[in-house]
């Protein structure tokens, strides 16, 4: 009863054509066109409220596009269960009565199917996913007892258990300390070997430049999409962030950005 469309191998994993979304009366995304190849890692950068979450939800097939189209391996996202959306941590009810293993198993219920219970093989998949993110020792913890990095890794394990081929992560690095960020980023490196495509919304331009294949600069419109060197120029950043951006030219030539816009809009820990 769960749909699962076979992929056309010659099609890009994600193909977005002239996508526009009006969300609650406002134009959230305007005329976005791009495509991704399997195994790519893309950082999506833009000011708060630029439409990053909206883009992810439309790609995941959770929100309908107002116009334009989204194709996952040649078909509409609504037929696929291979797209995983990892929410911002502030969007999750961490007091929910579920263990780490329970949350990861939630990703598999598409494969388990209606009126069935998870089988041994499903639990094996769950534990393999937890092993892959180094969380197996925490399998029976309640999710509220985890650190921020462990919470993100649990949700990444859920995406693996779902056998996702496209993983959309909404600001996963927010509020994590540097070692946790590093652990998560090196996990994303590993996913590349499995041809899993990853889109990550982030505020950290340094990480976007150093740890991702391509960078998408978004502010309702697609400002620029390409290699980090091409995209993260002062000129493009000023176009995306407008007057809110404060570019700081470091002594070693790198550019960091202080985003003074809209700090209260999203919850930062």
């Amino acid at each position, binding site marked *: 009863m*769960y*749909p699962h469309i076979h992929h056309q191998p010659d099609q890009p994993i994600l193909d977005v054509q002239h996508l526009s979304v009006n969300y609650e009366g406002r134009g959230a995304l305007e005329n976005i066109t791009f495509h991704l190849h399997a195994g790519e890692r893309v950082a999506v950068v833009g000011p708060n409220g630029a439409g990053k979450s909206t883009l992810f*939800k439309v790609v*995941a*097939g*959770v929100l309908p596009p107002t116009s334009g189209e989204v194709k996952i391996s040649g078909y509409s996202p*609504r*037929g*696929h*269960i291979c*797209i*995983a*959306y990892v*929410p911002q941590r502030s969007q*999750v*009810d961490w007091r*929910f*009565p*579920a*263990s780490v293993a*329970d*949350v990861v*198993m*939630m*990703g598999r*219920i*598409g494969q*388990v199917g*209606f*009126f069935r*219970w*998870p089988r041994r093989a499903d639990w094996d998949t769950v534990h393999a996913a937890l092993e892959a993110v180094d969380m197996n020792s925490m399998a029976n913890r*309640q999710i509220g*007892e985890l650190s921020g990095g462990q919470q993100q890794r649990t949700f990444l394990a*859920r995406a693996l258990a*779902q056998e996702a081929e496209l993983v959309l992560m909404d600001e996963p690095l927010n509020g994590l300390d540097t070692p946790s960020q590093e652990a998560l980023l090196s996990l994303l490196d590993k996913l590349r070997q499995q041809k899993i495509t990853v889109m990550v919304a982030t505020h950290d331009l340094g990480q976007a430049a150093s740890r991702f294949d391509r960078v998408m600069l978004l502010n309702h419109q697609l400002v620029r999409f390409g290699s980090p060197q091409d995209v993260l120029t002062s000129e493009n950043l000023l176009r995306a962030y407008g007057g809110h951006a404060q570019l700081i030219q470091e002594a070693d030539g790198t550019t960091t950005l202080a985003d003074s816009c809209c700090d209260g809009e999203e919850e930062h820990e």
Partner: protein
Amino acid sequence: MNNLFNILIQPFSYDFMLRGLAASVIVGVVCAVVGVYVVLRGMAFFGDALAHAVLPGVALGYLLSGGSRNTLFWWALGAAVLVALAVGRISKHAEIREDTAIGILFASMFALGIALISTVRSYSVDLSHFLFGNVLGVSTRDLILTSVFGGVVLLTIFLFYKEFLVLSFDPVLAATLRLPSGLLNNILFVLMALTVSVAMQTVGVSLMVAMLVTPAATASLLTRRLWQGMAVSAAIGAFSAVTGLYLSYYFNIVSGSAIVLTATAIFLLVFLFQPHRGVVWKKR
């Protein structure tokens, strides 16, 4: 010892007490299990509204059948399902906030119910039974209906356990897994409607929300997994029903209120004396 035995056994030497006990335990368990979702999803107000909104349906049945109680269950069921699905729809196309919409609907339906019942002369006893329940009036037929529909509710929750789990925890995941979220939400609303209809005779519409929320809230303080919460909540619901009936028998208290007060006492005990607000439990 013999004396205690007598105290425990004596009330149930009457058949109507035995039927009342069986009905209360079933209702206690069903309300407590459904209540876990009510607490998790913050639907307490919805549950309260649903219970009150059943009244005009019951009143209509009461008027049409000339005061007979036999068909009231079906009237309650019909009204509850209708209201549950209507509120589900309202919350989707919200021009006004959902809780405001529920507030308007709930009070007006309740008022309509009372208005209808009050057209009958000497209505006050029957009205109080609708509002506060009448455990001692449970007939064999009522008991069968209670068991069947209570069983349907528990079985459905069992069958859709993992889908309801995902839907309650992460609606976006439910959408990316292409679960039929709208249908599943409606099933959950209908389960609440069935629960309300089943519980009307025992606890009455006014106290229903306590049966839905209190045992589940107590269980949420003690457990960390959904199924554990359901088991503990059900046990508290059943225990409250039995204890409440004894209190009702020996102290001559209205049974619905005695059951609710027992559940509340358990909640307070757990709230106050649970080991270190979670620390001890979480260490394990």
